[in-house]
């Protein structure tokens, strides 16, 4: 039981990042750069609580806005390209962001102590939970409710105009444009939203980890999040949940395969793509009545 409580925060954070990838995948593209927005959210949230004593909720909100803004700017170009070029650009974005994080250096005196990111030494002392006496159970609760909030937001998005237009654009952009849907704008909205979700996840992560550094936002993180979604399937928002649960709870939480977890996980992706390319939950298919 206590083991389960211990993995709730990790599970929730991974899920939020997977939801971000899910949004991008819904637009028909694969992004290996969502960890960049995750990192933006982490640094923004951490700076606000550790250096400026902001409350957590406000800091998370700014995490979302900051990451969405960065996604919006880069999305200006990304929403105009597709396929392999899109993936490549997100890949480069991720590596670029990592280099930027290494350079973030900003110290400030807080309660007689210096706080803030220290460039290559990372950013330590994001101790909001500790200084506000928030215990493990409460931390898990916070992470889980934020993740649930993101889940609901992504679900609602998929059921309303912008989400439906996104599916249409992903499926046939020319047809969508012929019924007066702006494909670029639709994709840009989705990308900004995906950025916001990743940013929230990053904000949560910073406070959970208390110490962050550029290496936390490596390509491996982004690839995992995409893999969770592909593993679970794109049918609906439960896909990323299933995929994340499988890896975080089964492979990591229960330590079934020990230090070969990544080997097993990577092979699993390949095997799944060969045997069940539509994911664990599959996509909707309807039979002829």
């Amino acid at each position: 039981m206590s083991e389960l409580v211990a993995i709730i925060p990790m599970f929730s954070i991974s899920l939020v990042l997977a939801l971000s990838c899910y949004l991008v995948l819904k637009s028909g593209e694969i992004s290996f750069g969502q960890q960049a927005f995750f990192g933006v959210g982490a640094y923004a949230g951490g700076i606000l609580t550790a250096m400026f004593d902001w409350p957590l909720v406000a800091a998370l909100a700014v995490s979302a806005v900051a990451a969405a803004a960065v996604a919006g700017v880069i999305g200006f170009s990304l929403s105009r390209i597709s396929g392999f070029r899109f993936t490549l650009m997100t890949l480069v974005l991720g590596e670029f962001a990592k280099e930027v994080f290494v350079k973030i250096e900003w110290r400030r005196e807080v309660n007689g102590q210096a706080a803030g990111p220290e460039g290559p030494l990372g950013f330590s002392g994001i101790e909001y939970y500790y200084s506000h006496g928030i215990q493990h159970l409460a931390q898990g609760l916070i992470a889980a409710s934020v993740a649930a909030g993101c889940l609901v937001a992504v679900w609602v998005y998929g059921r309303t105009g912008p989400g439906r237009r996104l599916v249409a654009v992903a499926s046939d952009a020319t047809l969508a444009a012929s019924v007066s849907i702006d494909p670029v704008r639709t994709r840009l909205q989705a990308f900004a939203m995906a950025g916001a979700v990743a940013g929230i996840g990053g904000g949560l992560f910073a406070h959970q980890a208390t110490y962050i550094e550029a290496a936390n936002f490596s390509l491996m993180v982004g690839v995992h999040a995409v893999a969770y979604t592909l593993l679970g399937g794109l049918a609906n928002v439960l896909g990323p949940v299933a995929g994340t649960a499988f890896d975080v709870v089964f492979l990591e939480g229960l330590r079934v395969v020990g230090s070969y977890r990544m080997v097993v996980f990577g092979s699993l992706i390949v095997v799944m793509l060969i045997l069940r390319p539509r994911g664990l939950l599959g996509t909707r298919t309807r039979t002829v009545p």
Partner: protein
Amino acid sequence: MNPVLEIVAVCKKFSGVVALDDLKFTIEEGEMRGLVGANGAGKTTLLNVIGGQVMADSGIVRIAGLDVAKFSPWRRAGLGLGRTFQESRMWADLTTAEHFGIAIDASRRIAGRAAPNHAVDDICSLVELPKVMLERMPAQMRLLDRRRVELAMATLNASNLLLIDEIGAGLDVEEARMLYRLIARLIDRRCVRAAILVEHKLELLAAFATGISLIENGKASQHADCKDAARLALLMSSMFGHRSDAAAEVLQQRKGLQ
């Protein structure tokens, strides 16, 4: 009143191949203009240049008086341009009802509250689509029903002009005739102001169109009013070349089809 569509001196080359060559073309209110021409004559390219799927190298494309030559396809659609494509196109993993929902939503976003509030039921009856089709995915529908859905979606946006590219291809004459009757009715009811129909079966055009244009080598080389039997015969004979008896045959069939 401005013509529904006015094309002046449009040129389009595809890496050296001239597809449209200094083309001039006008469509007036209430017209149903048939486009005929050999394979590769440039009919689809003309529709693409009007719809924005292909950008003209030069020239003017006016929809209801506004030059849209530099506009992207979705903006042109928002100005009242609807189209169907030569190959049947639907969103593979959405049901018919979802198709309509998205198209209605999109057209209302563009036109604001002034847009007519279409109900899915009205749309179905407009294109005589059986209600059971609403819950089907494209792969589960036969071509005729898919074409009905495509026509309905195009119409939702096409307050000005409807562009129809070989909607009868792959269907038998009877089914194609049904679709053209639906289009004629859309114009009668003022759902759209005018339509351009690309069609290889001349007898269908002779039966439903108000006029026919022949596209040859990227130019609109001849126009004929469908009431003007002599010009129609001339257009057909230049299209069929030596087989002028084919033209007479088409004119014969015209009565039967209407």
